[in-house]
């Protein structure tokens, strides 16, 4: 029987071989192909998903505000800082990221923050102010006094890939539950039950579309929408839709609902900002409302959910009314589904859209500074890592200094021709940290970064280097040396004769060295530079952190060297920083996304100018602002603030410069035109008022020097530079390198000095 059967089967198999065998092979091949297809889709979607899920551009933070007792800070300044860090005024300032002011007291609650050097918890604080300073910092609960608190810094930007897609990742637990509830109620009610696709939703949509005769409803689940977003394609072919459906199911098999939802929240496209695509709710919140997602009100959450359906169509900035209608629909659905109460929905519907102005969102406000940060980081990191590894970059930007500089630029350029451009750099005098950077007259516009890339002749900004080279040779020159301000004929590099002029086209004969610098006379400076030697001047320039030609011509003394405003800041930082050259920094440290420290950029300092000549040159630079070409600064700033600096103007008034410093800040300002045309401005009329306005808002400490032991005050005659006595007419006190005081005396001075010597001897004898 068995045998018979088996034979029968074998015969029957033999008989049906062609058809069934081929069918089977066909089926198997189809299965293999389908499996391969699915495996390929699986691979594809997994790569995309993982890539998105773990790809995060580096986030750049401003420097955190250090609050400590005694710090010079007003309540208004604190609030400027808090606003920049995304804090808002709310209630009693008891929720993280909020503040409230009561007269000279500010209550605030910091957010917990992971710094590269450790975490700081959220703190509820009360900060008391008096006389322009922080007087007390207390915990609000216990009243305990705290000496020092770091306020969590503003996120100022992200280093995004060239595709210009931007996001700010959030974790599911940080997303308001009402937003998630609203999103699911509107977009995918069955999210927690379906397996990636929802047949009932598809059927419902198909029916609705059939009835309408066009596509009015999509049956896509969130998972399908996510797949579609990952693919970044709006192609609507059937094959595409099928692929998406299969991928959605595959995603659901591989990942749990929480992971999918979290990725969706970070991935969904919500707005286009110029060439920057805003992806994810985490970034959309500050972009539209200027605050973090966790702090949005219900109506704001509903507005974001409303935009999912059509980011362009429901863009609240472009179509406010349409967006509001859609938001109110969303609020209704949220109430219907029990996400919020009907009363809350009614109340929320009554609110305005509540957006911040475009450009007032807290990120991407500082294109020039971000440019500097990127260039800095590209020395140490690969571009891909910056764009995808979720690095946290702790920068040196001071939002308050930047804000002050931006306001000064706006005020000073108002009403001036559109062709007039400006750049501003501020640097911490001691640490070399760049605190503000402006690359053009519109600080929000990420165009040509003049602070870094406009290399212009520095004009008279070079003069301190010439005078310093001379003062470093105390046996040859002191501040009271006589310089010759009479007509001068020179040959340039091509052997052509030129006759330099002073700015006012007059000649003064003999002038004191200190006055020649104070009033920025050209001819004495050129003569001095030639006497001390061009190589001595280029040597000083190199020590001031500048490239200098091996061979230079006398015209070099007029500032033909071309430098960027940042280069000039590097140069003047040495004067402000005790004669130590400190590499300028825009980044303090970098950590990875787990907060692990990767790299720190420590403060470095190298002495390049000795005490005595530094004291003398800074004395002269202070005279410049007190009584010379920089005195206009005191039209803006209180005369109590000691400042030092130098104007610079280039031929035909093409460039207007001012570089100077207080005790704590170095500021450099350039004004000019991109086409190198004439501006009609000198350093005193163009750059100086802008510099003064910036410094007035930023500088807190005057520039005061401690006189080194080897420098002594000496009375000299203001006309002849000869040594004299305090009581003689024309006597003027100047600091001198000890042992290098003027050798020649005035008649009056000699007589007085002899008499005093006698007198002293007599007194000494009496009181022995």
């Amino acid at each position, binding site marked *: 029987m068995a045998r018979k059967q088996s034979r029968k089967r074998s015969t029957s198999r033999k008989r049906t071989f062609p058809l069934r065998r081929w069918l089977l092979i066909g089926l198997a091949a189809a299965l293999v192909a389908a499996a391969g297809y699915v495996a390929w889709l699986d691979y594809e979607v997994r790569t995309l998903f993982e890539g998105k899920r773990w790809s995060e551009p580096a986030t750049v933070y401003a420097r955190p505000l250090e609050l400590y007792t005694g710090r010079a800070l007003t309540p208004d300044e604190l609030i400027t800082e808090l606003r920049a860090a995304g804090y808002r005024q709310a209630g009693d300032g008891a929720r993280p990221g909020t503040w409230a002011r009561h007269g000279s007291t500010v209550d605030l609650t910091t957010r917990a923050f992971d710094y590269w050097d450790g975490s700081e918890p959220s703190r509820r604080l009360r900060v008391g102010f008096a006389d322009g300073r922080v007087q007390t910092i207390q915990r609000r609960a216990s009243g305990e006094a705290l000496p020092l608190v770091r306020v969590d810094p503003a996120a100022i930007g992200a280093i995004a890939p060239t595709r210009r897609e931007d996001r700010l990742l959030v974790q599911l637990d940080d997303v308001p539950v009402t937003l998630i509830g609203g999103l699911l109620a509107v977009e995918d009610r069955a999210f927690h039950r379906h397996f990636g696709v929802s047949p009932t939703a598809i059927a419902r949509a198909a029916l609705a579309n059939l009835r309408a005769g066009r596509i009015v409803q999509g049956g896509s689940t969130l998972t399908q929408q996510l797949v579609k977003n990952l693919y970044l394609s709006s192609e609507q072919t059937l094959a595409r839709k099928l692929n998406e459906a299969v991928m959605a199911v595959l995603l659901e098999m591989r990942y749990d609902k929480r992971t999918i939802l979290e990725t969706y929240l970070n991935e969904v496209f919500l707005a286009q900002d110029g060439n920057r695509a805003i992806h994810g709710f985490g970034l959309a919140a500050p972009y539209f409302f200027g605050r973090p997602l966790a702090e949005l009100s219900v109506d704001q959450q509903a507005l974001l959910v409303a935009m999912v359906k059509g980011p362009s169509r429901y863009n609240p900035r472009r179509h406010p009314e349409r967006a509001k209608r859609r938001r109110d629909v969303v609020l209704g659905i949220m109430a219907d589904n029990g996400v919020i109460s009907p009363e809350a929905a009614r109340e929320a519907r009554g609110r305005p859209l509540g957006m911040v102005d475009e450009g007032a969102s807290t990120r991407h406000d500082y294109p020039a500074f971000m440019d500097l940060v990127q260039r800095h980081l590209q020395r140490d990191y690969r571009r891909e890592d910056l764009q995808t590894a979720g690095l946290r970059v702790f920068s040196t930007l001071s939002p308050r200094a930047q804000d002050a500089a931006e306001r000064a630029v706006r005020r000073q350029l108002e009403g001036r021709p559109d062709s007039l451009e400006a750049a501003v750099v501020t640097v911490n005098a001691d640490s070399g940290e760049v605190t503000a950077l402006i690359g053009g007259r519109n600080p929000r516009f990420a165009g040509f970064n003049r602070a870094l890339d406009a290399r212009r002749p520095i004009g008279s900004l070079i003069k301190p280097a010439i005078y310093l080279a001379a003062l470093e040779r105390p046996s040859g020159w002191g501040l009271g040396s006589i310089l010759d301000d009479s007509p001068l004929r020179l040959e340039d590099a091509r052997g052509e004769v030129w006759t330099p002029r002073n700015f006012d086209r007059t000649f003064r004969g003999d002038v004191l060295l200190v006055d020649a610098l104070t009033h920025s006379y050209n001819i004495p400076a050129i003569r001095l530079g030639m006497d001390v030697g061009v190589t001595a001047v280029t040597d000083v320039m190199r020590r001031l952190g500048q490239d200098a030609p091996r061979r230079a011509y006398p015209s070099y003394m007029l500032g033909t060297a071309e430098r960027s405003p940042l280069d000039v800041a590097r140069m003047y930082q040495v004067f402000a920083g*005790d004669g130590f050259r400190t590499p300028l920094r825009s980044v303090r440290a970098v950590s990875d996304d787990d907060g692990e420290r990767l790299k720190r950029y420590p403060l470095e300092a190298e002495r390049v100018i000795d005490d005595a000549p530094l004291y003398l040159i800074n004395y002269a630079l202070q005279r410049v602002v007190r009584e010379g070409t920089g005195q206009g600064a005191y039209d803006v700033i209180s005369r109590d603030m000691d400042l030092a600096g130098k104007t610079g103007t280039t031929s035909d008034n093409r460039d207007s410069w001012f570089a100077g410093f207080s005790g704590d800040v170095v500021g450099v300002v350039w004004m000019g035109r991109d086409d190198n045309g004439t501006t009609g401005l000198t350093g005193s009329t163009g750059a100086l008022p802008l510099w003064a306005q910036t410094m007035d808002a930023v500088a807190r400490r005057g520039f005061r020097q401690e006189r080194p032991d080897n420098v002594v005050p000496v009375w000299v005659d203001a006309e002849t530079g000869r040594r004299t006595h305090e009581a003689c007419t024309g006597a003027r006190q100047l600091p001198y390198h000890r042992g290098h005081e003027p050798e020649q005396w005035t008649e009056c001075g000699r007589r007085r000095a002899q008499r005093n010597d006698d007198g002293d001897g007599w007194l000494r004898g009496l009181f022995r």
Partner: protein
Amino acid sequence: MTPGGPGALRAAAVALALVLVLALAGCAVVEPPSREDDGDEAPAEAPEPDRDADSEAGMAAVQRLLADARAASDNGDNDRAGALLERALRIRPDSAVLWHNLAIVRYREAAYEQAADLAGRSLSHAGDNRELKARNWQVIAASRQMLGDEDGAARARERARGLQEAGGD
């Protein structure tokens, strides 16, 4: 002379200088920064109220940071110690003690050129504080020694000794 003689002597000298500096460093890190202010004040000048507030500003914060820096350095995390001292210096850039301690931290990180430069920066703020000046010269001497600059080290040691002797009476 035995072949290893001078080399061994030199190594011993370096080791001694190192031990000395580290011992001093230990002391320096605990020292409160208020000391230097004693020397600063010119008795003739009437103190302006603003300047008075300036000299007190951030003292408590600096003390806290200094203590944290010391703990970090003792833990071997000199990078963090350096960062904490830099934070303190942003509050009090005129503090010779902070610059000195930063020099010590750099020395411990074997960044000798920086150690010497930062000790120099401390010197320029040290006013009449002879003891602190002497310590800075010791850091400079030890750093130069490590950099192979024997003559420079000897000169710096001489400066340190001069300050210590003068300050001893």
